[in-house]
């Protein structure tokens, strides 16, 4: 029965990779829910499958079996093209290495996802300025990524993630490449996104300090949640 309070419903997910003749099971019959407006941290050692799980929820990888409902849509049955459109509409991404396009300015990087919407140029500009304002980078909007610090680049990445007003934000080790102070800024910003904008956030981290920012932490080990 559909639970409208949950934005993510993962059921019996299995995922394995083929490495030569060996099959490596990464996720083994995982089931869990994420409530709407939740800030969830998924922790685990390297190779535990936490990034794979995040990729499945975000629709950038496919499970071998099981189903994933995100925002009331079963994404496991979508074609690649439909999945690309679904990601553009529903998911904001924050990566460990920021993944900004180096030939575009901060403003253009944030504008990038909006080109897939039907917004006018003026409408896009308003959204971009609002998003950059939220991460306090209006004055750096014409700078290229190489002209920004790591923390500033990650803030641009957060602005890019929220500019389309997605239902869910996924963050893969968002503080993994930052110094402690910048990491704290980013975590503070993510908490604001969660509390002020009501964004559901799923964050993968191996840093217990980062995980403290989340409301709920789940530990993944050998492809299964530990109690």
């Amino acid at each position, binding site marked *: 029965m559909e639970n409208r309070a949950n934005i993510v419903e993962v059921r019996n997910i299995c995922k394995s990779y083929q490495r030569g003749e060996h099959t490596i099971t990464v996720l083994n019959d995982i089931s869990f829910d994420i409530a709407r407006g939740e800030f969830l941290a998924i922790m685990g050692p390297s190779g535990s499958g936490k990034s794979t799980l995040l990729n499945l929820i975000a629709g*950038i990888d496919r499970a071998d079996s099981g189903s994933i409902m995100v925002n009331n849509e079963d994404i496991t049955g979508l074609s690649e093209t439909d999945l690309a459109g679904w990601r553009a*509409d529903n998911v904001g991404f924050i990566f460990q290495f920021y993944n900004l*396009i180096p*030939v575009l300015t901060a403003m253009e990087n944030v*504008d990038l*996802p909006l*080109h897939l919407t039907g917004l006018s140029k003026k409408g896009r500009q308003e959204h971009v300025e609002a998003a950059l304002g939220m991460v306090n980078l209006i004055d750096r909007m014409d700078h290229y990524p190489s002209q920004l610090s790591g923390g500033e680049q990650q803030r641009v990445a957060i602005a890019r993630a929220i500019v389309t007003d997605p239902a869910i934000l996924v963050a893969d080790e968002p503080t993994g490449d930052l110094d402690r102070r910048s990491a704290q800024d980013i975590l503070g910003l993510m908490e604001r996104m969660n509390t002020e904008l009501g964004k559901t956030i799923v964050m993968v981290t191996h840093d217990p300090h980062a995980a403290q920012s989340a409301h709920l932490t789940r530990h993944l080990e050998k492809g299964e949640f530990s109690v």
Partner: protein
Amino acid sequence: MILWKMIFKNAFRHKLRTALTILAVAIAVLAFGLLRTVISTWYASVEASSATRLITRNAVSLIFPLPLSYYNKIRQVDHVETVSYGSWFGGIYITEENFFANFAVDAETYLDLHPEFVIPGDQREGFLRDRRGFIAGAQLAERFGWEIGDIVTLQGTIYPGNWEFQLQAVYRGRDESVDESQFFFHWEYLNETLEETSPTMADQVGFYLVGVTDPDLAAQVAEEIDAMFENSPAVTITETEESFLLGFISMTEAIIQVIRLVSFVVIAIILAVVANTMAMTTRERTGEYAVLKTLGYSGTQITLLIMGEALVISLCGALLGIVLTYPAASGFRQALKAFFPTFSVEPATILLDLGIGMLVGIVASLVPARQAVRIRIAEGLRRIG
């Protein structure tokens, strides 16, 4: 719009690599353009030929003469308007390196049949009056610095001795396809001299040039002329000027085929150069393409991004190659004016250069684009960091 910006920015991201690739494409396009111009120059005389002119020659071979007595008989054939004749003289000016085509012709009729030779009226009259006079193409006169009134001596090869001529006229071509490197003098001068020195060679011509009233009747007239001399000691073969020139060119067809083949090899080289650049570029940007796909950009948009970048590079190279083709062709013409008197780059060659630039850009990006589109996002993202 943002894709356009990314295309241009990406194309010049690695300035040295892009500059070297553009240079390589430019050199290849330049080589291709020059080779195509050599081929088109080879056929330029055919393009300049007239549909109303027929050439009658000895059926055995062009090197065998025809009797002068055929002249009046050919004139009597229906639909024949003008008949001229001439002989290849094969004279050498100072040394063999100064080669140019020189003919002894029946001056007035020959000029009447070649309205594409533009000659000032007084010079034409001067040439027709002076039996030792000659007419030279503007390019030839310029090559040797000849002025009207200059005496020029040719050393005979077929017709031994030193032959003195006085420049009476300089012709220019009506258009670029007209060969301006030829030398014509009076056949009467040749014949009178032969009557004294080698009587057996006198009263013979190398070819007849026949002007017909209607190009549609050319085949019929040719048949009638050849039928007339079917049982004569010197059997004739008559064909249109175009067929005659094509027959001449066919003797060098193998060379043209080799040049054509080399021109296509050049295209293959450009393709390999651009494909290599695009393969390197795409591999380096796998992570960025994965990010774009993550944000919802489709495979088609990624393909356009890569293809656009390849097109920018290959078209920049093609444009640079085209710009360089003109001075290179001019230098080529100066250096080899004896062999390529009408060496000029045709608009079709430029269009072909541009077409090749586009084709190379598209083809060179196909495999890298396919790889970028097919790679899994998760795998692409792992290439970052």
